[in-house]
């Protein structure tokens, strides 16, 4: 019987069926659900959330060295964090099969860039496997482990948002247990001294050459023969789009193993058609190599390297077919994502929006939304952990330029453990004029509420020793740690002032759990406006709450959305807003 699975669920299922034993990941859209699915196989599969992608990759590599099939997964930018262990794991090779899943996000639905991680496979000299639907996500996992072990290399398994987050029908299989390889010390293979690395490099080249030879007859790469007019080389989700767009009779070379490319197979395929297209989302990864091999083809001169494709975009770019769209006389206004009603981050960012002239260096997570109007209280966001260290760079530069100004560096709790701790050390070590602020909502919020080293639970639902952020900060050298409920605006403002004026290194922890954490019973209520008291000054609108609007020149609160956090009530100058129980 077939079941409907997302690509991510199918990847987890495929790893399970392939006999995977040990898995580690850091959550990141669109990869997160792979590891939310794995606990279903508890007992047969160990899985965990790691503090970051580098740790997850090192951990999964360790599991491979210890002799079992292992898995790690991350979003595309997560692989930047994990690049260091990945590049050298390619030289050391594997013992148990080792698969690294990278989920790219064309169109940046939930990301800061749209990097094409296929280049990592070529760069790091890894096998690259790209599924195009959920059935392939599952089936290709098994082949990924086989290739990893047969060619002694980690396999990069690359999806995109539409592969990971679309659902399609999948025929399930049975788990095949893989006997662990008995552990033995192998210094020559597993210790990357320069001498060993020197000897490992030719091994990598030899394995890649053998893999390329295999790729020409690998079942993941297949030809759908047409009438010989048009041929399309394609892979991943672009295959599905191309199938909708090209005319009947088109030949397809559908690739699943895309590094190394099966150049002989491509050459043969090209010779069998009059016109050759290469259709791929984002960069011309395959096209560049195909053209370099002297095979003429049409690709990126027609198909944009920006944003995700769909059949209509592809049809328009390739064949100039304009979509039939009716122009409406009305236009929708922006509906950007916003901090939820009752979000604990709102109190901090509102406070900083009133703290004119301060510099706030932000980070990746729900609290990136502190940059959205009307709060507009963030100066920079760059990457995970950057909240502290970008802030340190700005503060030190201001100092070098002879200006004294405190910078507030902001990270979340999960981000603190991910890569905020090193920035916190930088601030102390090099005496940067930065107040680190940890917005501790006890969970990894934006990706959908995953546990982290501070949350007290593991991925498998077991109770963990929650690491206290204040203890870490204290250990690093912060002498004054102000722990504050950000929803108490007076206390929040006082903490910001105290930290700013502190003579000793000070840090702030804004502590209040995310309202969407299901295991906590939240004491929600409802705020109501007394329209007789309301003077229509719109002060409450400055907190940027989606539940608030102005109706007939008076403040109005949507009872469906409001949770009674009272941040709006605290800013009302005439006391027109009060809280009642829901």
């Amino acid at each position: 019987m077939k079941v409907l699975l997302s690509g991510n669920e199918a990847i987890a299922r495929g790893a399970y069926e392939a006999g995977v034993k040990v898995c580690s990941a850091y959550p990141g859209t669109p990869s997160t659900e792979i590891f939310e699915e794995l606990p279903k196989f508890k007992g047969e599969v160990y899985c965990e959330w790691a503090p970051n992608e580098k740790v997850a990759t090192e951990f999964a590599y360790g599991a491979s060295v210890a002799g079992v099939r292992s898995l790690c997964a991350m979003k595309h930018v997560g692989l930047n964090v994990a690049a260091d262990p990945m590049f050298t794991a390619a030289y050391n090779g594997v013992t148990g099969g080792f698969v690294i899943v990278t989920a790219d996000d064309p169109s940046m639905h939930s990301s800061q860039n749209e990097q094409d991680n296929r280049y990592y496979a070529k760069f790091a000299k890894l096998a690259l496997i790209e599924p195009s639907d959920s059935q392939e996500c599952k089936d290709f996992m098994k082949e990924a482990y086989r290739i990893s072990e047969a060619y002694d290399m980690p396999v990069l398994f690359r999806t995109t948002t539409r592969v990971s987050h679309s659902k399609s029908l999948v025929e399930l299989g049975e788990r095949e247990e893989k006997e662990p390889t008995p552990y033995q010390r192998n210094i020559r293979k597993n210790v990357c001294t320069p001498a060993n690395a020197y000897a490992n490099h030719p091994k990598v080249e030899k394995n890649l050459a053998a893999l390329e030879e295999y790729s020409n007859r690998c079942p993941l790469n297949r030809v759908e023969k047409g009438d010989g007019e048009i041929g399309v080389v394609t892979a991943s989700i672009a295959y599905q789009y191309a199938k909708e767009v090209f005319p009947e009779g088109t030949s397809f070379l559908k690739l699943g193993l895309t590094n190394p490319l099966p150049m002989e197979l491509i050459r043969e395929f090209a010779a069998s058609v009059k016109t050759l297209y290469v259709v791929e989302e984002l960069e011309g990864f395959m096209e560049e190599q195909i053209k370099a091999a002297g095979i003429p083809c049409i690709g990126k001169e027609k198909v944009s390297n920006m944003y995700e494709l769909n059949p209509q975009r592809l049809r328009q770019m390739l064949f100039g077919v304009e979509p039939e769209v009716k122009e409406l006389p009305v236009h929708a206004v922006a509906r950007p994502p916003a901090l939820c009603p009752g979000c604990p981050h709102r109190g901090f960012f509102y406070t900083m929006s009133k703290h004119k002239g301060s510099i706030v260096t932000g980070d990746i997570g729900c609290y990136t939304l502190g940059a959205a109007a009307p709060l507009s209280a963030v100066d920079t966001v760059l990457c995970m952990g950057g909240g502290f260290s970008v802030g340190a760079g700005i503060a030190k530069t201001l100092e070098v330029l002879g200006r004294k100004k405190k910078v507030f560096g902001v990270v979340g709790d999960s981000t603190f453990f991910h890569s905020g701790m090193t920035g916190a050390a930088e601030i102390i070590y090099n005496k940067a004029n930065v107040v680190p602020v940890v917005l501790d909502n006890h969970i990894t919020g934006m990706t959908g509420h995953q546990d982290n080293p501070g949350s007290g639970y593991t991925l498998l639902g077991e109770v963990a020793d929650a690491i206290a952020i204040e203890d870490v900060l204290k250990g690093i050298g912060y002498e004054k740690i102000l722990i504050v409920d950000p929803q108490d605006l007076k206390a929040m403002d006082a903490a910001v002032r105290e930290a700013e004026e502190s003579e000793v290194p000070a840090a702030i922890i804004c502590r209040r759990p995310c309202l969407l954490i299901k295991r906590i019973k939240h004491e929600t209520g409802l705020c109501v406006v007394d329209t007789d008291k309301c003077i229509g000054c719109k002060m409450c609108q400055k907190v940027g709450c989606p539940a608030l609007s102005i109706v007939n020149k008076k403040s109005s609160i949507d009872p469906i959305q409001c949770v009674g956090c009272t941040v709006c009530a605290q800013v009302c100058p005439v006391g027109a807003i009060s809280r009642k129980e829901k």
Partner: protein
Amino acid sequence: MKKSVILVGVGGQGAILTAKILINGVMKKGYDVKMSEVHGMSQRGGSVSTQVHFGDKVYSPVIGKGEADILVAYEKMEAVRYAEFLKPDGIAIINDYAMPSAATAAGLCEYPEGCLEAMQANFNCHVLKASDIAMQLGSAKCMNVVLFGAMTKVIGLDDIDWETVIRETVPPKFIDLNLRAYEAGREAVL
């Protein structure tokens, strides 16, 4: 045969559950089916869309402009936003309900007037007060299934036993509420 349905609204309005019911139904009929949804940042009060495509054989899990047969909008301004995805002869099923966006709530711009009228002037539209109907049934949350009931009626997917599908899809304690919502939706577009 291939049909494309696009369900649009604001994060948290329940498009994914509706999509699940639709998929479970068409799967019973033996159709091939693909669905696409968006997770992450845009779920935080942002505009969201979920797509369902079913037919004899479905390749792409997403469509572009001018390619949807049916648009189901949980909020009327979102109907306008995604109208460009609808085929010129496509059908729109719209909840007559306005939800301010973070931008309008902050007073940065005005919620547009005339959303329903613009949709009705250009498309085959079925407008119902699904949020009010849901409230009368006891929970604003079942608005999604009210619209779903209306959709099954409008597009004539009547050879599928939707009541059984709903029973099998929604959590047990919400079966009765959702069955009533489904019926109320069908009646609202008589």
